[in-house]
């Protein structure tokens, strides 16, 4: 039963990490446009449109639309 000392904090940490990730995604405005996000995931265009490239968008936090009410 000593394993609990490791497992319980580990489980809580994992849960906590999930919560932090959620709060971060909320803060960075990823829930502002759920319809658009669904389409962006499957949009397959090849040209270098900055705002359509998920990698480019994530690389600089500035590309996410900031919360409107700031």
């Amino acid at each position, binding site marked *: *039963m000593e394993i*609990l000392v490791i497992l*319980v904090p580990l*489980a*809580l940490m994992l*849960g*906590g990490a*999930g*919560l932090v990730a*959620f*709060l971060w995604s*909320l803060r960075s405005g990823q*829930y*502002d*446009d*759920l*319809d*658009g996000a669904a*389409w*962006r995931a*499957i*949009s397959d*265009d090849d*040209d270098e*449109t*900055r*705002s*359509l490239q998920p990698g480019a968008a994530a690389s600089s936090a*500035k*590309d996410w*639309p900031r*919360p*409107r*009410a700031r």
Partner: protein
Amino acid sequence: MQVTRDFSHYVRDAGEGVQHIDLAVEGVHCAGCMAKIERGLSAIPDVTLARVNLTDHRVALEWKAGTLDPGRFIDRLEELGYKAYPFETESAEVAEVAESRFLLRCLGVAAFATMNVMMLSIPVWSGNVSDMLPEQRDFFHWLSALIALPAAAYAGQPFFRSAWRALSAKTTNMDVPISIGVILALGMSVVETIHHAEHAYFDAAIMLLTFLLVGRFLDQNMRRRTRAVAGNLAALKAETAAKFVGPDEISQVPVAAIHPGDIVLLRPGERCAVDGTVIEGRSEIDQSLITGETLYVTAEQGTPVYAGSMNISGSLRVRVAAASEATLLAEITRLLDHALQARSRYMRLADRASRLYAPVVHATALLTILGWVIAGASWHDAIVTGVAVLIITCPCALGLAIPTVQTVASGAMFKAGVLLNAGDAIERLAEADHVIFDKTGTLTLPDLEVMNAADIPADIFALAGRLALSSHHPVAAAVAQAAGAKSPIVGAVEESGQGVRATVDGVELRLGRPSFCGAETLVGGATLDPEASIVAFSKGNEKFILSVRQGLRPDAQAVITALKARNIGIEILSGDREPAVQAAAHVLGIPEWRAGVTPADKIARIEQLKQRGAKMLMVGDGMNDAPSLAAAHVSMSPISAAHLSQATADLVFLGRPLVPVVAAIDASRKALHLMRQNLWLAIGYNVLAVPVAISGVVTPLIAAAAMSGSSILVMLNSLRARSASREIV
């Protein structure tokens, strides 16, 4: 005179030498549009961000400060085939967005805590029937407390605040029993844990909060979404005014950037966007959106004009007044304030239910405690059982019963073209048994139509339409639109106050007053609609007359029939003249009508009907309707309505047909039915669960299972509000 567009009012500084603007865009529906717009705008040099929000139909744009004129983005979007206009977030929408985020954060925290507490609870439940040591159980309970207490303190805020507000105002609402239940459950669990007891209810308390937050978030999100749509529609109306920035120089600026004392130019065919007084010029104005009166009024120096008036013939200079200066507005505002105060007394179904529910539940818990003490149990055991009764009756399902239906129903209404302004509008609309219509702009369409287009040869009509393109007169605009004219006739000359003329292939064409076209005899001979404006068209010696008026909404008659079939009383209250109202009432088959009614008269009539116990739905668009919209039990406005009316109405409907009125009534009746059903389901569940709780055999496992079971049942029942409504008319 030079005209420039000035959007600087909407531009924000986004820091680091970057400027930001939000545009509302019409017609963005798919990934294709999104990619097209983003690519098209990013191609403009110096644009650093172009991002479409498909949910809200908006575009966020950023560019290097000072390099670009925002007007260019709008032109670019127009080239791409989208109508766009800068957007300023209303304070109401900002508040909704902030509230929505806060609820989502609470929900995230509560869901996290529920999952982790459950992870600790399940070993305890299974351990209780096997070989768990009491020390291990205590350890798990303490861990649960560590997670649940801070999480509940944070995620419970929406409920605690609302309950506190209600209690401070010496009333009660649904959040009061919820808060009491949660706090007692947590408090008792802590005490039990300290005493090494077998049962703790951390899981039930935090799960309750999670379920309720789901309901509340859905409700809030739907409201935020309708608010965004309404905001976009307002922005796309692109209300601008030609403001004098120099003695002879005017700039087209958004209305929001105009201040009292500014002087604006009102050209023929323009709708006035401000309230003010005429300081120069002479014209006829159409004030039907203000007073319901369709006859034109003469405006000259000193005449007050209101936002929404249409200028017909000449140019006017208008000095912008502060809102309170205009006398009509002041009167309407006074009536409106009065009516709004009266309306805020309405008590929502959820609060009525909890007013009955809370005392019964709390009394049951108290009786349980006393009963067990009398039966010989210890005080500790009796109190534990009493709190278990509170936990199991905690109105989880009751708290979800109404918001879930509301969310689903408002989604269905949204599809039917109805936006909800007020949270409790559905409940009130469902009770309506009497509809009062305004005539002008509500039963009739706000724009002019050519009534006798079928009597005129198609080629002649097309020619008249092309000629009409050269005139600013609203009647001419209606002719041009009806004829679908695209290319104006080159060399057409407008004679102010008379009409337009042009010569094509040596034949003179004229469109305008009958006297201008030499068609007086035709007008004298025909039996004419008293409502209509008559314009004449002449091609050489051939002469025709066109009758232009505000037509009834295409489905008005069908809607009236549908309302009658639902046993709803119908009445017209209009500020327009008697013949006009009588004609409309006759066509639609409405026996009850009143004409020439003032705002105060309208309210008086509504009060009179209220005395008889009728629940009124008022449908109106004019500024003169605003007070009666507020005074009625529930109210509705078309999207073309005056600002004040639209802001006052509980519901706003889009488009040309009138059918959303019936659709909204049907949807809300169905929703109310489901709300009641849900309340009964929730109560039925309590009736089954309470005896179990009173008998003292409830374990946390039973509480958790019962709570999620009833919540899911209620949510599933709510989804029935989605099903397609039957054919309406």
